[in-house]
């Protein structure tokens, strides 16, 4: 377990015009569950490869527990990784797979220690029953569990990198694997860096999430913080389903525009579908017309719907229990919103 510190680390492929990863600094504390979230091509894998030593940064330095590991190969960083697809030594049994990292040069231990550690990790992951099986003869789900077990086997591992570890697993057992992973992280207190493009995975797994886009970290914060309080329009748009609504301030009614002044002079307002209320015409300031309805379910006997609304030239989504039909005119009350200027958050209203 270790604290991971990235100091102005950037990466540019030789001959490339733009940096794959813009210089960034990051601090992941000891025993933290950290998540890197971003769409494909955002630079997640590059960052992961920089941490694991496949790639060396073209600038900046990487520290593990204040030891500069920049330039060191992966084997000397004492870290482990779980890959998208289960990577096992297929000629070995499950037990041998788990024990392998404890038998290699530099981390060799005596037999009793290995036995005890393998059993402890197997218990944690509930795979004690398949230890004697061949690594080839178990299910995909079990294989990925064993791969996770192998990543956790060294008690002193500095960090565990998880590269979209649920990709290959069937949807029906995804949550089980995620639960196991989360539990193991808490029980063993391992520093974990979880890379994913799936916001649900990132937000439920991590204590802190870093959102990446186009090689930049747009925001780092708790899941609640990045969701409720996005620092960048992309973060608001990328998280949530549907994502944040955006309306240009210039297109808002006069009365609303006045409420916005003194908030850092934003160009656009962003609000989440659940942070607005609907009313009959002339109730609130912002008028709109219902153009679509998707029923989400019922809550305390009321039907909750996701309404698509046309507000002038713009389309927004609002979650509401108000019974409406397509074509109905409504007004919208923004309970909580964020102001953005040049896509950067400049102010907010309604929170706290």
């Amino acid at each position: 377990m270790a604290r991971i510190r990235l100091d102005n680390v950037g990466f540019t492929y030789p001959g490339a015009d733009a940096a794959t990863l813009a210089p960034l600094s990051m601090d992941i504390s000891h025993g933290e569950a950290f998540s890197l979230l971003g769409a494909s091509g955002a630079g997640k894998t590059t960052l992961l490869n920089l941490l694991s030593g496949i790639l060396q940064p073209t600038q900046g330095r990487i520290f593990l527990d204040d030891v500069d590991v920049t330039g060191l190969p992966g084997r000397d960083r004492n870290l482990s990784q779980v890959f998208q697809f289960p990577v096992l030594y297929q000629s070995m049994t499950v037990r041998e797979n788990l024990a392998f990292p404890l038998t290699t040069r530099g981390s060799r231990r005596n037999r009793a220690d290995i036995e005890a550690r393998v059993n402890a990790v197997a218990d944690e992951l509930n795979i004690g029953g398949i230890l004697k099986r061949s690594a080839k003869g178990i299910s995909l789900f079990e294989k990925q569990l064993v791969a996770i077990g192998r990543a956790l086997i060294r008690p002193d591992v500095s960090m565990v990198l998880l590269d979209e570890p649920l990709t290959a697993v069937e949807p029906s057992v995804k949550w089980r694997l995620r639960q196991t992973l989360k539990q193991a992280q808490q029980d063993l207190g391992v520093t974990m860096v979880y890379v994913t493009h799936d916001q649900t995975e990132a937000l439920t797994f991590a204590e802190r999430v870093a959102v990446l886009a186009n090689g930049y970290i747009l925001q780092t914060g708790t899941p609640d913080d990045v969701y409720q309080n996005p620092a960048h329009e992309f973060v608001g748009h990328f998280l949530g389903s549907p994502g944040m609504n955006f309306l240009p301030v210039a297109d808002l009614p006069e009365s609303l525009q006045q409420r916005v002044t003194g908030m850092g002079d934003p160009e656009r307002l962003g609000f989440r579908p659940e942070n607005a209320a609907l009313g009959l015409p002339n109730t609130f300031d912002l008028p709109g017309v219902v153009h679509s309805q998707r029923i989400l379910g019922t809550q305390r006997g009321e039907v909750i719907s996701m309404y698509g609304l046309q507000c002038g030239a713009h389309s927004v989504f609002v979650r509401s229990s108000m019974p409406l039909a397509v074509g109905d005119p409504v007004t919208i009350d923004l309970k909580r919103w964020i102001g953005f200027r040049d896509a950067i958050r400049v102010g907010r209203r309604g929170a706290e």
Partner: protein
Amino acid sequence: MAQNRVKDNRAWIGVLPVLLIVAFSGVIPLMTVVNYSVQDILDFNTRFFVGLEWYRETLDDPRFVDAFLRQIGFSAAVLIVEIPLGIIVARGMPTDGLRASLLLVLLATPLLIPWNVVGAIWQIYARPDIGLLGVTLNELGIAFNYTSEPLHAWLTLLAMDIWHWTSLVALLAFAGLTSVPAACYQAAELDGASKWQVFRFVELPRLKGVLVIAVLLRLMDSFMIYTEPFVLTGGGPGNTTTFLSQYLATMAVGQFDLGPAAAFSIIYFLFILLFSWLFYTSVMRDEDRS
């Protein structure tokens, strides 16, 4: 459906060409040999049934036994060198780019040369009077002469076969190595695996399939080798490089002993079959168990 079906056996006619081809290319020649092997043929009209006499005689023939042992020695030596060497070459290959393509073409070249040409190339190359290899060795103070020294003849033959066929093993192993996912190497690196462990636990299990094919091909081919030693040494000096196929050719074509030669062929054929089967089942048994 079943009730409406018209009973009609005309479809069998469609299978006929295949039956004919298999019969003429495999079954009939083999049965002819079996037929010969149990008869003493004096001339076209005079033949006696002798039962297993020729088989007994062949197995008791010291020249057969010698040739057989030489054959096993040759095949074993060839496999012991070519399989590891092929893997080493394949592991040293760049995985992509122009260099990889050029190397692949270069590697494939020996495989494209007709076998008797391979024999002729090495026959000239190793000649102590004019051959590049032979002259060079003699200049270095080694009294190299493959036409008079059995050991030299053997080494030349082995060198020729290794030169000729290691490429095949290397190409197969290269194909096997390209199928190893990068993540497997990465995981081994992070686990702190040594180079040997990477080979033993990451690469070898994934090479198993192609290596089984490589060993089978090289086993069968080397066991049947004829043309190259025939051109290079002619089985000499003495009989020291006379392998099974050459002895067989001497009997069948040279002396026209059809009966013994036929019995010899059957034994020869069964041995190749036996060795291949033994190897294949022993390797594949682990596979089924897991």
